[in-house]
């Protein structure tokens, strides 16, 4: 019986062959076409819809998530129907291609394009002029945007503020994170304490800005203060103070904005340190204690060296993070009172002042600032045996 079946399969009739061929054609052509039509119709629906908003939201979610899954399924289906050799050759690119295309479109190319834009005036390279000719037009300004960045007062102020953010923001976050992690490690209330310190990580910068605006709220001296900090100051006999908006103490009023980031990021540092501290073998600490080392010596001579790698990683992360700080400054002060930073200047120049050349130059400075970290990451990667 089995043999007959095998023989029959080897000699399919003409009709069956045609049906099979049609089936393949259907799968290879019609299904993709249907899929693209469905995805496109979804797009049109979302663009023009007057449906109730929750319907729109739901359709958007299903369409977005389902559409991407459908695309993979369709492309894979096409590739798997090719001859085996071609399947082997092409399938990896079906898997890896979309990710690469998006990364190149959204990050790799923009870096080059932004650099190109940064060499031009406020309106960018003139329309309808070729790439090489554009350098001969008047719009080409060379490195002038970069020169302006380091000579204009407002930009110099932003650079100075960003240095403050990086130095104080990262240092305080790391120190405080280390303190809480070490203390929590020895406390019975570790879980609760860590949760509560970590909680601000879930809050958006805009939300955090509202929270701290409320903390910093200032009222005239003859009215009751509703901001906690000024209430304390007044209760102690002082005058209400404008904190982050106190231009008279500039640039130190920036510290009150940096405090917000400390509030948000200390929990992040704490979590990383806490995990690292747990990784220190108990015996080493015990051995040191038996040898007569006190807690402070154990901390500095054993724990700190042991988690130095984590400290450097955490510190780097927060440095990168404070380098790009935007939301807090934008919502709290809008850059007034001498609080502009590089990222707010970038936004202001690019989108408010519509000076694309200048804005791009600022973005390039941000990119250059992270290059050392990028090189370090690549070096680490090369040292791994993974590839």
């Amino acid at each position, binding site marked *: 019986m089995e043999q007959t079946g095998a023989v029959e399969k080897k000699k399919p009739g003409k009709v069956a062959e045609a049906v099979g061929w049609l089936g393949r054609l259907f799968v290879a052509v019609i299904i993709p076409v249907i899929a693209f039509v469905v995805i496109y119709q979804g797009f049109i629906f979302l663009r023009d819809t007057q449906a109730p908003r929750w319907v729109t939201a739901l359709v958007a979610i299903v369409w977005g998530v389902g559409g991407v899954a459908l695309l993979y399924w369709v492309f894979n289906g096409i590739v798997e129907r090719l001859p085996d050799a071609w399947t082997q050759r092409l399938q990896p690119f079906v898997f890896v291609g979309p990710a690469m295309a998006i990364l190149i479109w959204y990050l790799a190319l923009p870096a080059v394009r932004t650099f190109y834009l940064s060499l031009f005036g406020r309106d960018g390279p003139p329309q309808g002029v070729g790439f090489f000719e554009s350098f001969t037009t008047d719009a080409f300004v060379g490195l002038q945007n970069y020169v302006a960045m380091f000579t204009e007062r407002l930009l110099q102020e932003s650079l100075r503020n960003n240095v403050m953010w990086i130095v104080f923001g990262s240092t305080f976050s790391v120190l405080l994170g280390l303190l809480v992690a070490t203390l929590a490690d020895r406390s019975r209330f570790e879980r609760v304490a860590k949760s509560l310190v970590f909680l601000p990580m879930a809050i958006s*910068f805009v939300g955090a800005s509202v929270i701290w605006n409320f903390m910093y709220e200032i009222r005239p001296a003859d009215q009751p203060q509703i901001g906690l900090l000024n209430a304390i100051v007044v209760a102690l006999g002082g005058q209400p103070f404008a904190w982050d908006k106190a231009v008279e103490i500039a640039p130190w009023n920036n510290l009150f904005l940096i405090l917000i980031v400390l509030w948000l990021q200390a929990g992040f540092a704490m979590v990383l340190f806490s995990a690292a501290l747990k990784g220190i073998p108990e015996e080493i600490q015990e051995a040191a204690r038996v040898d007569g080392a006190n807690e402070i010596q154990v901390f500095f001579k054993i724990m700190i060296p042991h988690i130095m790698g984590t400290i450097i990683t955490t510190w780097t992360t927060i440095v990168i993070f404070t380098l790009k700080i935007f939301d807090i400054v934008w919502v709290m002060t809008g850059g007034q009172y001498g609080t502009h930073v590089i990222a707010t200047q970038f936004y202001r120049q690019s989108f408010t002042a519509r000076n694309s050349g200048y804005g791009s130059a600022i973005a390039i400075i941000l990119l250059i600032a992270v290059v050392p970290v990028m090189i370090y990451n690549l070096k680490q990667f090369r040292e791994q045996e993974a590839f």
Partner: protein
Amino acid sequence: MKRRNWVGPLLVNGILLLVVIIWTIPTFGLLVSSFRTRFDIQTSGWWNVFPHREWQTVATSDPKALGLDPDGVMTIEGVQGTFEQLRTGIESPDGSTRVIWVGNKRLGTIEVQKQVWTVTWDFTLDNYKQVLFGSGVVANNPDGTTELLPGQDMSQAFLNSLAVSIPSTVIPILIAAFAAYAFAWMKFPGRKTMFILVVGLLVVPLQIALVPILRDYMALKLNGTFLAVWLAHTGFGLALATYLLFNYIRTLPRETLESAFIDGASHFTIFVKLIMPLSVPALASFAIFQFLWVWNDYLVALTFLGVDPSYKVLTQRLADLTGTFGNQWQLLTAGAFVTMLLPMIVFFALQRYFVRGLMAGSVKG
């Protein structure tokens, strides 16, 4: 030695408690305030919900009936002062009584006040009604007048935030998982070069991309659509997602994969049926990380969603409120809490995954 045994833990827990209290107070103050009436928020600090001492009038009298001369020095209830001094209130030497002149010189009354313990517990849900349903609220002012406060509907923004965040979380995970699988288990030319690109792009600041991508979107007429923001978040989160998922998928046992191959399964089947279910911990970690990142994002939404109010997400709406109603704290506190609600739930429910995702993916551009 004995002494240290209790001083140590006391010091540790004491400092810890202090830090925890300081860290919690700002959020707590916001939460409490969001339930207070507009009048209460504007006139007293939120800490008045705790027991505190307040002056309360115990007796009111007419200065004429007491035979007082408003132009000279008056003596009432053991305190002495001129009209100007009485207007601001004079406390008795022992601090237990305060005498205050309320109103003008001719028609005013004199109030004798004592300090009593009290709490201000006049809580309301009006603020949330205003920001969630956009319903106007009638406020009773203490002087007897009423005022209609316009609502600030944030429910649309809440839906928009969901419509932005969910695909912006799932799409990069899907794309990154496919790529990570290919990097981990498939052989193809250019594999190493491509992965070096992924690693190199990990820390690239997204500011670099905003202007060129905005130009592309304008050309494609994508600006202001959800698709534009999904793709942007996908692009900015993809390097990290690929890197994380690759590191995880690589560690899965090779034997499972090989036996599946022998059974005749294709790469696609193995990926969907085997690798995805096995990678759930890594997928969940990144999902939470990315979800919170997108939900809390302001810059990308501001750049690509633009100014159309029907598409604005929560962070934009809240930032707008801060700009236009900077002193309407009843709106801002409730609004801020609405934006924080979902991340907080995610945070408390899935904290362990979140921490893991954070530790793995701390460097993001």
